Each structure stands twice: as C-alpha cells, then as structure tokens.
C-alpha cells in the first residue's frame, strides 16, 4: 500500500487478555517506530527497529510489552495481560532512512486499544 497500515484499527480487550497489534510499513522503509498516545496527550516513544534489529526499546513501559520485526518489514506489538492503563492509541511510523535523521517519518492511523 501507499502508506503505513495498522490493524486492527479498534480493539476492545478484557483486562488480562493478550493483544497483538500489526504494522505494515511503507515498502522498503528501513526504520520502524512504535508510539503510544493516551487520550489528550502527545505520542510517547515505545521502540525503534532498523530493519529487523530492535535498536531501542527504552520506551516500553513494562515487560508485558514486546515488539518484533522478524523479517525487517511487518512489525507486531504484543501486550500481555492487558491492564486498563494500557488503553491508548498505538501508532506505528516508518522512514526510508536510519533513525530520524531529520527526515519525514510517516505515521499510520493507529490501533485504538480499550481495555475493559
């Protein structure tokens, strides 16, 4: 596709349930970022991949959060034993260069997670 695609767009999970959020970056993009955006807040960095390598995972809030990008394209963000505080929009972004490098990064429309 032409842009960053995320699925599911909306997910309601019961507390304690595991969820998996998928991101299809723009084809050929080297860099992939995950951000978490709580209601009324700015996005917060979760993790960064350069191809298949996870170079920075310092923003993952707990060990319940896990991200992978095994073949350097599609990425999955997994949240285990979801808690209510995990309710947020999870944004994926990609870029054709490494890191940010002062280049435009392209965001997907996000996966809206509500934990009940």
């Amino acid at each position, binding site marked *: 596709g032409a842009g960053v695609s995320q699925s599911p767009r909306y997910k309601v999970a019961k507390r304690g349930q595991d969820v998996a959020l998928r991101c299809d970056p723009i084809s050929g993009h080297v860099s992939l*970022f995950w951000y978490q955006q709580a209601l*009324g*807040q*700015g*996005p*917060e*960095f979760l993790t*960064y991949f350069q191809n298949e390598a996870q*170079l*920075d995972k*310092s*923003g993952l809030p707990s060990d319940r959060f896990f991200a992978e990008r095994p073949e350097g394209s599609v990425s999955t963000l997994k949240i285990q034993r979801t808690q209510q505080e995990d309710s947020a929009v999870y*944004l994926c*972004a990609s870029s054709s260069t490494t*890191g*940010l490098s*002062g*280049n*435009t*990064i*392209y*965001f*997907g*429309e*996000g996966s809206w997670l509500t934990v009940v």
Partner: protein
Amino acid sequence: ELKVEQNPLFLSMQEGKNYTIYCNYSTTSDRLYWYRQDPGKSLESLFVLLSNGAVKQEGRLMASLDTKARLSTLHITAAVHDLSATYFCAVDLGYDMRFGAGTRLTVKP
C-alpha cells in the same frame, strides 16, 4: 528530565486573526518537527526544521527554530476554519521523537 512544553495548550481564535504557538524544550537538539493531528486521525507532517535559524512556510503556517534558545514557533497567519486541529512539536533525539502535549486549535467564523 527532558521536557517539551507547548503553549498554549488550547487556543480559540477568530478567522482572519494571527497567532503563534510556542514550543520550548530542555535538551540540545538541532532538529525539530511539527505535526498536525485531526480528531481520530493520525499525525500529518507539517515541517522539519534542521538547523538553528531554520524557517519554513506552507500556506498560512510558518515555523521557525532557535536552537540556542531551545525554542520553536508555529505562526498562523489569517486563520481559517480548516486549520482547526491539534498541533504537536517534537524534538529529535536520534531514534526517539519527544512530543509536546499538543496545542488544540479551534478557529471560529
């Protein structure tokens, strides 16, 4: 702790008026980004500012960067209703972009 502070957080303005949104940050960085977000939508890149003194303009929006003062501004000229959205600045930290809390702009007729 790194802080990225935008003000105002809420801005209601009349069509045709001018206003400036400010973004202050507390770390050394030569690169700053401005994004627009419409309700329920993702982030749209507006400007990438890459050096001290950088100024970019697109339509009724103009952004500038003063890295010495650690300040960026987004100036709105002759606002129109279509500019109503939330505007975020973000500081480039290499892999991480640190966002401000956003300025929710409403332009009224």
